[in-house]
């Protein structure tokens, strides 16, 4: 009800960090950083998608001639790297940033400036890696860049230099964000928000951050070795010096497998928010959903070598890794069935986010099943490095992660911008994506089982792969159209979508209790949470009475919201206001918010200078200059208090 107080706007000159471009460059507001992540990541998704589409055009028929072999190799390497590190991970990060503080009832993350730093470093790393295109030297070692192909001897060009350094930078971003969110979630939950009352998306974030901070060290080390080998002549992957090429593979997949759960768990979290809302039922088996997240993450550290069944590890290791891999199907299956349980008996509203969420449930299952097929080593010997694997991981990545993230975008767009996305365009987007995605990736199962290796630039005629590839390419064309519709929808709705109000969907969690978009301080009063579904408790306490952690009858959230009954949304008049001027400022409320600052950006620039020095003829003075800028910015940042003195 904060908005009913039509307090006069505090007059006076605005600080330069409070408006225009500076307000973005110097922001420490998790919501703005979340949006920066969102739009940057979507842009990279388009880039990765264009790369994919060129790949598909090249593979349309036998002996395609659209691109050269060298370019093709760069395309799939950059497609994989872009989609994983610059599209899906940061898209998830967009939600971590935007949503987690809102969901736990906090005003910001634990370390707002570090948060800004994470974003800038991500931006720098992703630009750095793509700059390579301008030098005709995009990375070309495949997204897991096996040794010794990645070493100077076999990849003498700049290509892999860009990859090595770019990946190092991106890793830094994720690690910094990881510590930040772990701290935020442990320490900034609103009063009453026990761990077992946290929204499932926050749980997914929490678990994902552990996966990040515990698995990124592996790739950091693997890539550091490679960097030393390439730049300083060490011997880590130098076969002649006695090195073992499998070292890279083990270190990479020790990271790589947890990474795939880093890519999927946030999507699982989003879907776990969307399904209950549009089923008008609590999530089925909340505790088990939480435990299964933890179990998946934990088991995820014990299966890495299932990517290496063909390298000759011996029967004992093959058996162990085969079985641990299969085990992961159990907690994941529980999630699928509990989602079905959530929908069972519900009152399902097929809004666009709901459609995408259901899309995840159906498509991820297909990818999961082919994953289990991989987990049987003798069978996998026929599948590995064939298009069957390509089919598997696009079903889990596109059918899982992307579907979940799309669901999240449609669901939270109103909270982010205050406006709803168009349902008509949204449904077009969904159905074209659903059809296009199956047309693109389902035939890849057949191509793979029919012997088509992956990462091939051309294939010969008469191999029995033509039809599969025709269909795949046509499917990809449909995906291009679908994605364009999405982009149009996004742009148009941002400008002129219908006003959303606080709670357009009748959702159960507290982020829907505040205006859309939320004021800088999120909650005028930090809410006190007494259940998993505070919003529903408030509106219909008798319904959730049986849900654990929901003592009936209490007013759970101290901010008033519009009521909503199943299938019918009433948007309260008091939130029908443009956010920019609707709420009293933090200052008026006496809320102390972090001061905007440009220092995290400066620190990032220092890092960039250093890395450019390294790649540019190993220019020592430039490397040192960058280091000095970085340290100076860091000191300046750490020695100024986060907030204005009060």
């Amino acid at each position, binding site marked *: 009800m904060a908005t009913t107080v039509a307090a006069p706007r505090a007059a006076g000159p605005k600080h330069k960090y409070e408006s225009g471009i500076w307000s973005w460059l110097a922001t420490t507001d998790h919501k703005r950083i979340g949006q920066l992540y969102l739009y940057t990541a979507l842009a990279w998704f388009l880039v990765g998608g264009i790369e994919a589409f060129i790949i598909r055009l090249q593979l349309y028929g036998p002996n395609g001639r659209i691109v050269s072999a060298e370019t093709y190799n760069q395309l799939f390497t950059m497609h994989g790297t872009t989609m994983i590190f610059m599209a899906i991970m940061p898209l998830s990060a967009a939600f971590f940033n935007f949503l987690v503080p809102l969901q736990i009832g906090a005003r910001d993350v634990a370390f707002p400036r570090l948060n800004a730093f994470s974003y800038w470093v991500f931006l720098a790393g992703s630009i750095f890696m793509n700059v390579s295109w301008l030098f005709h030297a995009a990375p070309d070692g495949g997204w897991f860049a096996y040794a010794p192909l990645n070493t100077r001897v076999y990849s003498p060009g700049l290509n892999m230099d860009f990859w090595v350094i770019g990946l190092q930078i991106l890793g830094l971003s994720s690690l910094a964000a990881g510590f930040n969110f*772990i701290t935020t979630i*442990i320490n900034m*939950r609103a*009063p*009453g928000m*026990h*761990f077992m009352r946290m929204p499932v998306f926050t749980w997914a974030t929490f678990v994902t951050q552990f996966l990040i901070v*515990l698995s990124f060290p592996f790739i950091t080390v693997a890539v550091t070795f490679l960097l030393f080998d390439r730049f300083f002549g060490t011997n880590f992957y130098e076969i002649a010096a006695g090195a*073992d090429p*499998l*070292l890279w593979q*083990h270190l990479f997949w*020790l990271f790589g497998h947890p990474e795939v759960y880093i890519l999927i768990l946030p999507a699982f979290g989003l879907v776990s928010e969307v399904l209950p809302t549009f089923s008008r039922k609590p999530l089925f088996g909340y505790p088990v959903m939480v435990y299964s997240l933890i179990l998946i993450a*934990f088991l995820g*550290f*014990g299966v890495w*070598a299932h990517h290496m069944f063909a390298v000759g*590890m*011996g*029967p*004992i*290791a093959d058996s162990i890794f085969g079985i641990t891999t299969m085990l992961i199907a159990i907690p994941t299956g529980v999630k699928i069935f509990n989602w079905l349980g959530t929908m069972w008996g519900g009152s399902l509203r097929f809004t666009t986010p709901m459609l995408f969420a259901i899309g995840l449930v159906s498509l991820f299952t297909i990818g999961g099943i082919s994953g289990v097929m991989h987990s049987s080593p003798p069978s996998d010997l026929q599948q590995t490095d064939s298009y069957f694997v390509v089919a598997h991981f696009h079903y889990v990545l596109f059918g899982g992660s992307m579907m979940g993230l799309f669901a999240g975008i449609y669901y939270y767009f109103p909270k982010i911008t205050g406006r709803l996305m168009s349902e008509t365009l949204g449904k077009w987007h969904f159905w074209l994506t659903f059809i296009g995605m199956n047309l693109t990736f389902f035939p890849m199962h057949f191509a793979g089982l029919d012997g088509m290796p992956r990462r091939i630039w051309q294939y010969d005629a008469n191999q029995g792969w033509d039809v599969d590839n025709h269909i795949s390419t046509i499917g990809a064309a449909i995906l291009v159209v679908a994605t364009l519709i999405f982009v149009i929808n996004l742009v148009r709705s941002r400008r002129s979508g219908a006003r959303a109000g606080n709670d357009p969907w009748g959702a159960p969690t507290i982020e829907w209790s505040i205006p859309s978009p939320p004021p800088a301080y999120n909650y005028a*009063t930090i809410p*006190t949470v*007494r259940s998993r579904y505070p919003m529903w408790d408030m509106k219909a306490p008798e319904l959730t009475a049986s849900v654990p952690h929901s003592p009936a009858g209490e007013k759970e959230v*101290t901010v008033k919201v519009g009521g909503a009954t199943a299938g019918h949304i009433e948007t309260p008049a008091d939130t029908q206001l443009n956010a920019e001027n609707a709420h009293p400022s933090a200052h008026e409320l006496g809320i102390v918010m972090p001061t905007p600052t440009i220092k995290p950006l400066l620190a990032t620039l220092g890092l960039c200078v250093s890395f450019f020095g390294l790649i540019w003829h190993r220019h020592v003075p430039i490397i040192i200059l960058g280091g000095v800028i970085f340290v100076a910015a860091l000191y300046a940042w750490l020695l100024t208090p986060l907030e204005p003195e009060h």
Partner: protein
Amino acid sequence: MTADHSAHVTRDAHGDAHPVEHAHPDWGTYKWVALVLTIITIVEVYVYYTGLKDTRLFVPILLILSAAKFAIVVMFYMHLKYDAKIFRGLFIGPLIVAMTVLISLLFLFGHIAIHAS
């Protein structure tokens, strides 16, 4: 409402960790800890220079001694023994996974070989 609210805060303090000042050890403890650490280090080096070096006990002895040192520093100097439970989780969980991975890697590269057939 305000009163109501603040009442929640106290009543609702989380079970997993209380905002409590933890009793930290002091000089009395620290000096003993330092002494023990020094002695262990001396023993380690001593073991290295004796005939034990060529026996099968050498490696296990060293591993145990350094594990003891490790544990002592973590428990007392890093006061994990006295501190909130959550820190124990944040440290020991990852430590165990990391050690397991380290050991499995040594297996996989045949350093602690178990040979099939």
